[in-house]
């Protein structure tokens, strides 16, 4: 059948099972929006306040559901506004398809109005990108884009479509999407045998779980694996939820803000089993002193991660879930007895170095998050902004389910959380979504409150308001002789009134004894809520590893 490029685009989205698109209209995408008006029942379009919000929402949607997130923007500034969102998705390996309009083909390369070379700009932050210069290639490019976004290590793909392509007609035939193959070709019998040998000879194993566990849906396999090996488990920020946080083998976060137990364990283990993790600088700190007494067994889908940041002794390259399934089948019951000493060492560290925070001095951010956990029975989806709010949210909430902690781990994008919470809530309408924010991060993209209210999303935004750019201020406090350069926010923004102006419910929380009352009020409200929590400017995130130190030299609350 003869269809226009715009119609082909929408047909291809439906072919891929896309039901939601986060987008913003503009001149170069007029034809697409015109066609969209003909498909209102099949594709739900969410209109944010800003294209950055669209990109973060598509990303949050993808992380919460495991499906591909789709965002759409016009040429020029529309496209560049997606860039931070695309880079965020790239760093955290999130499957995203970003579609941008561009000026008509004859105007390309002439500095036309709202023209930008978005494929050039996004080359280093996408898995791949395309510009479509012939309408006959449009359908195949879209199909490839969805395939690439999901195949292997997931990531964002951008498709740039000049305006004339969306109005030209060509023949279109619907196709069944290509199945996404699991990467299993390199999971050889030898690789499994060698891994089993290492696991069997280890007396002090440690599993370091990363975001790959979540993205390959391998949480249950990891649980089985850890129990079979009787190995303690630590997690990167991206790995949270990939292993039950309330399990006796779980030690918590590792790295810069890791639990002391996790960090000590990494220095003492004789075998470190990295599962879908990439030894980022935020985890390893001083690479020379990281896990220096351990053999390293690295399991990852991306061959380029092996030996990239750290030298590994053995690796298995492939889909995490498939690798763990194979290992679980091959693993004979291990000699648990020989690990007793190690496991009791871990548990004594846990008792000795619990997550602690000063209980005096008013409303504590950690306590608020603990109560959110209690009041939602740990069933909520938590999105975060970036900074102290992010780490408190990571540490003080016990994540037991994958895809319930959604945070910008690699890029560290302030302003990510609100957009992400919108996408997560739309993708998981039956879940309670919280966005844990700081006042600085919230102010960056708070315009998306308008979106949450418009679509009647019952998101609860908890602003941990310390009137400061808290994480940077904390670094200035600890490592820059308390020179608080530009991090004290003496703004008079009234977040409650701001919430009300957007049509949300605004609540103030100032006293520790009101935490449950206010949170309950927020949970009972049917729409979007902003809870402004007045916390102390000098509350800090602990533990913290000073820059350049080995991770066992972690500073805790009491040190």
């Amino acid at each position, binding site marked *: 059948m003869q269809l226009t490029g715009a119609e082909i685009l929408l047909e291809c989205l439906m072919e891929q099972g896309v039901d939601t698109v986060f987008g913003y209209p503009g001149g170069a995408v007029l034809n697409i929006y015109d066609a969209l008006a003909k498909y209102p029942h099949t594709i739900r379009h969410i209109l944010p306040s800003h294209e950055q919000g669209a990109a973060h929402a598509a990303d949050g949607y993808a992380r919460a559901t495991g499906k591909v997130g789709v965002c759409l923007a016009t040429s020029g500034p529309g496209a560049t506004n997606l860039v931070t969102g695309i880079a965020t998705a790239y760093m955290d390996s999130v499957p995203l398809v970003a579609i941008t309009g561009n000026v008509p083909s004859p105007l390309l390369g002439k500095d036309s109005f709202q023209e930008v070379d978005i494929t050039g700009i996004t080359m280093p932050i996408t898995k791949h990108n395309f510009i479509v210069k012939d309408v006959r290639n449009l359908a195949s490019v879209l199909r490839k884009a969805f395939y690439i976004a999901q195949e292997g290590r997931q990531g964002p793909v951008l498709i740039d479509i000049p305006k004339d392509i969306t109005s030209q007609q060509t023949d279109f035939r619907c196709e069944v999407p290509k199945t996404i193959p699991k990467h299993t070709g390199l999971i050889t019998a030898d690789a499994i045998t060698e891994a089993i040998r290492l696991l069997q000879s280890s007396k002090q194993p440690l599993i370091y779980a990363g975001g790959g566990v979540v993205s390959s849906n391998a949480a249950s396999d990891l649980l089985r694996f850890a129990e079979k090996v009787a190995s303690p488990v630590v997690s990167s920020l991206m790995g949270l939820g990939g292993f039950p946080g309330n399990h006796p083998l779980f030690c918590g976060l590792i790295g810069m803000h890791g639990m002391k137990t996790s960090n000590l364990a990494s220095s003492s283990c004789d075998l470190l089993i990295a599962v879908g993790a990439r030894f980022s600088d935020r985890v390893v700190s001083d690479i020379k002193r990281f896990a220096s007494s351990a053999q390293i067994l690295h399991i990852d889908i*991306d061959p*380029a991660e092996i*030996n*990239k940041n750290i030298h590994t002794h053995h690796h298995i390259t492939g889909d995490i879930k498939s690798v763990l399934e194979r290992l679980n089948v091959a693993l004979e019951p291990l000699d648990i007895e020989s690990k007793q000493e190690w496991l009791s060492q871990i548990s004594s560290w846990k008792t000795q170095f619990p997550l602690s925070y000063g209980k005096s001095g008013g409303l504590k951010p950690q306590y608020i998050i603990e109560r959110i956990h209690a009041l939602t029975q740990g069933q909520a989806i938590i999105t975060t902004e970036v900074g102290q709010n992010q780490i408190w949210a990571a540490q003080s909430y016990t994540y037991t389910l994958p895809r319930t902690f959604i945070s910008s781990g690699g890029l560290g994008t302030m302003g990510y959380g609100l957009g992400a919470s919108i996408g997560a809530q739309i993708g998981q309408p039956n879940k309670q979504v919280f966005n844990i924010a700081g006042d600085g991060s919230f102010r960056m993209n708070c315009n998306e409150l308008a979106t949450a209210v418009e679509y009647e999303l019952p998101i609860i935004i908890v602003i941990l308001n310390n009137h400061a750019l808290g994480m940077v201020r904390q670094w200035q406090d600890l490592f820059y002789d308390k020179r608080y350069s530009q991090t004290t926010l003496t703004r008079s923004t009234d977040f409650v009134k701001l919430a009300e102006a957007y049509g949300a419910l605004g609540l103030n929380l100032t006293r520790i004894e009101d935490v449950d009352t206010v949170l309950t009020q927020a949970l009972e409200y049917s729409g979007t809520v902003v809870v402004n929590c007045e916390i102390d400017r000098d509350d800090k995130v602990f533990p913290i590893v000073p820059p350049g130190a080995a991770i066992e030299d972690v500073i805790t609350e009491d040190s």
Partner: protein
Amino acid sequence: MNRQILSVLVDNQSGVLSRVAGLFSRRGYNIDSLSVGETEDPDVSRMTIVARGDDATLEQIKKQLNKLIDVIKVVTLEPGDSVYRELLLVKVQTAAGNRASISEIVDIFRAKIIDVAPQSMTVELTGDESKVNAFAQLMQPYGIIEIVRTGLTALQRGDKDIKN
């Protein structure tokens, strides 16, 4: 620092050169030369990349290249097992008395004079890097006006080809 010669088959798409070049620059990989051209299949181009780095970096370069969607295959060309060539064009100053001596060197190197002007001569030479370097050095005393080199290009020796 070791040197590695990579032969890379890529989809002949617009932007593929900048994807490859961008990968080297953003990850801080050292590149000595890069040459590219169409292959027997017009949809496929072949790049010869001379890169430098320690073993770990060279391993990363190959892995990162393999992640690019437009990259079809990456092969390391081992020195003993491959033939290398580079093309040099050099424009040398000529004076009344030295044309003959330049021409003599050109003959020894099996190079070719491809343009002669009142005060200059342009010479073409192909060879491996050391031959090209040696020739350029010998031209130096006459006064090199300009010089252009294509960068190394290479194939495996024998019946093998990159696809097998």
